[in-house]
């Protein structure tokens, strides 16, 4: 599986290979394998500037000039042929033919970073020793040249007995050589490769010496050190400035989610309102109009409004990932993480869990230590994923006044949102501590992390990411949310009595809501919220759509007021805050449950996790509402 989680998996990411030859993309982490894969296949696998982005295999199709189909497989990065983490295991299995659905590759493209050629060449020895037709690609030619480095690809080819191409996967320079190689693959059976007998290299030091010698023969001049990276690190890793800058940036983003995205949100909102009204006027009064206007427009529309905010969040995460700052953030976070029994590397999946827990849980594959990985998987769903954002911002907009706290920089609403994010983080940390002192005791962690050079995030790749994100979000609105909304609308109109729909409290949906009401009343929730809690088991943001539909049906007689106003009438502030706390803790996401089951290989973990998070959510919300009742 590669795309089953509903919130990851953008536009086309992979194709499935049935028959035909395939070439594996192999190389050290962050060498540009996925960039080349995307260029060759036209797909959009995730590319980012830190080691360990790709954690599973992805298949893509390339058509050659004769129309023959050939497959290219993107793989996780490896440092050697000794796998130490789950992602490296994937690559190892493919290269040794242990992956049954693929079989042994018909050829290999070995991608090395030309700006650090001699160390990367160490991997060439064991890969060439596999005896498969191999093209050695020296990537990042643009960077090498800009920093005054040099290499002679044909001299290198002579030394290692395999074709060598110097390319820039990012700009496309030299990629035709790769295409030529692909066209040759499979045309002949297996090309008997090494014309040059490679020396037997028993161990790493010997391999490194060999790589040094070969590099020298190939006229390799290493590039000048990345001056910009050093300068930036002096700022970002500065004892005082570093954390300060981080804090300011984070505050700015949270404020931006409220003030920056507001005009766009208002725009989307009025567009949806206007089109809904238009549609209403076009259709005759009756069931269809009610379904479309109150059900679909009221339900799906109220979720779609949050698109600008979500894109803003993704823009921020994208800049962090593409620039190379994320690896530094992991280093900065390591000390704190080690106190709770985790390591800095866990910070990367945890940060990506702010977008969505599904890819984050997959990203834990890069963590070598099994216990570290398990702990990270178990706490990842506490991180505030983007599906919680619509719920939070809706409730905050309805119940928190926008009083400025620090002038224009920070308002009360943004501060509450930040507080909820911190709460999720605190719950993750607390759970990690709990795990360390119970089931995962004595886990000693280590941390080793390669820091890539900073790169300027390309506007094109950021834009493509946002487009992919928007597509995913809208797709979800058009499928899961639409489906739940329509189902809810139907249940809210049955059973028909005297040819009329019953009042919503007496409909099937209303009865279900009222059945759970006694259990959630102490939390400050009424039966409508109860329905929302149930529907949001499909996905968190569904509750927004559900409330949109319910209030829409309730107020069908009048001009329906905005969702925010209906909420204000329907919930007490205590209930509203309890609801936010509930969403901060509960594991209401079926995709997450499914991915945890897949990655950990048993139902026991996700079941325990679901129960633990659910109890925390229930009692957290209960405490919040009771406190409010007590002190109001």
């Amino acid at each position, binding site marked *: 599986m590669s795309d089953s989680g509903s919130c990851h998996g953008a536009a086309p990411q992979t194709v499935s290979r049935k028959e035909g030859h395939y070439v594996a993309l192999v190389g050290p982490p962050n060498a540009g394998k996925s960039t080349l894969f995307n260029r060759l296949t036209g797909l959009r696998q995730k590319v980012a500037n830190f080691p360990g982005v790709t954690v599973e295999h992805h298949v893509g199709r390339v058509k050659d000039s004769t129309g023959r189909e050939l497959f290219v497989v993107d793989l996780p990065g490896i440092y050697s042929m000794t796998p130490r983490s789950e992602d490296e295991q994937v690559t190892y299995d493919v290269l040794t033919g242990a992956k049954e659905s693929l079989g042994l590759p018909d050829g290999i493209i070995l991608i090395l970073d030309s700006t650090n050629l001699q160390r990367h060449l160490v991997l060439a020895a064991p890969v060439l020793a596999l005896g498969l037709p191999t093209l050695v690609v020296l990537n990042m030619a643009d960077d090498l040249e800009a920093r005054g480095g040099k290499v002679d690809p044909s001299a290198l080819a002579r030394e290692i007995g395999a074709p060598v191409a110097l390319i820039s996967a990012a700009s496309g320079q030299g990629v035709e050589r790769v295409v030529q190689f692909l066209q040759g693959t499979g045309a002949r059976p297996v090309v008997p490769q090494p014309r040059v007998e490679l020396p037997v290299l028993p161990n790493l030091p010997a391999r490194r010496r060999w790589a040094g010698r070969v590099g020298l023969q190939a006229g390799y001049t290493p590039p000048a050190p990345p001056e910009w990276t050093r300068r930036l690190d002096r700022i970002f890793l500065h004892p005082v400035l570093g954390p300060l800058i981080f804090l300011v940036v984070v505050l700015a983003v949270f404020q931006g989610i409220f003030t920056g995205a507001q005009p766009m949100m208002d725009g989307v909102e009025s567009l949806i309102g206007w089109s809904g009204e238009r549609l209403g006027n076009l259709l005759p009064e009756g069931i269809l109009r009610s379904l479309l206007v109150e059900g679909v427009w009221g339900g799906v529309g109220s979720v779609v409004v949050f698109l600008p905010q979500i894109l803003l969040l993704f823009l921020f995460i994208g800049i962090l990932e593409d620039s190379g700052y994320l690896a530094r953030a992991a280093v900065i976070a*390591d000390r704190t993480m080690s106190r709770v029994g985790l390591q800095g590397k866990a910070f990367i999946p945890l940060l990506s869990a702010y977008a969505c827990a599904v890819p984050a849980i997959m990203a834990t594959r890069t963590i070598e230590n099994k216990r570290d990985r398990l702990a990270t998987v178990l706490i990842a769903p506490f991180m505030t994923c983007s599906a919680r954002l619509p719920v939070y911002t809706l409730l905050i907009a309805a119940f928190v006044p926008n009083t400025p706290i620090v002038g224009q920089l920070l308002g009360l609403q943004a501060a509450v949102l930040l507080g909820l994010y911190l709460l999720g983080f605190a719950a993750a940390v607390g759970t990690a501590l709990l795990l360390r002192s119970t089931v995962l005791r004595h886990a000693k962690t280590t941390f080793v992390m390669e820091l890539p050079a900073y790169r300027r995030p390309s506007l094109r790749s950021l834009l493509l990411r946002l487009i992919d994100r928007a597509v995913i979000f809208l797709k979800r609105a058009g499928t899961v949310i639409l489906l739940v909304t329509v189902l809810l609308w139907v249940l809210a109109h049955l059973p028909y009595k005297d040819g009329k729909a019953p009042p919503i409290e007496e409909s099937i949906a209303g009865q279900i809501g009222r059945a759970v009401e006694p259990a959630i009343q102490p939390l400050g929730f009424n039966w409508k919220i109860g329905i929302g809690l149930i529907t949001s088991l499909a996905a968190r943001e569904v509750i927004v759509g559900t409330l949109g539909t319910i209030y829409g049906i309730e107020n069908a007689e009048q001009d329906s007021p905005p969702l925010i106003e209906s909420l204000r009438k329907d919930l007490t502030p205590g209930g509203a805050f309890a609801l936010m706390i509930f969403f901060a803790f509960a594991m209401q996401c079926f995709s997450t449950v499914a991915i945890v089951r897949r990655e950990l290989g048993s139902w026991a973990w996700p079941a325990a996790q679901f129960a633990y998070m659910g109890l925390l959510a229930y009692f957290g919300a209960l405490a919040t509402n009771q406190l409010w009742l007590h002190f109001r």
Partner: protein
Amino acid sequence: MQLSFKNGAAQTLAQLPTGSQAYLERLDLPEEMSQRLMELGFLPGTSVVAAGSAPGGDPRIFRVDGSEIALRRDTACRLYISAEPIPDLDQI
């Protein structure tokens, strides 16, 4: 800047002051960990520069074999260094 040794006591990477350079002598770590570090460039004989650290001083960042690697102090203190190139390993 060259590192000066205090009367023969074994020195480790953890003690290498930021901005200084030394040669790696040996790794005193479990097999798996030392293999990983060697793959990243920490091979005996290699020149290592202490490049900086996270704001709290741990982990520290080292420049080795063309890249920058962050290590925790408790790992760095198991990597022994010497101020002089190591005779039969200096081909690297």
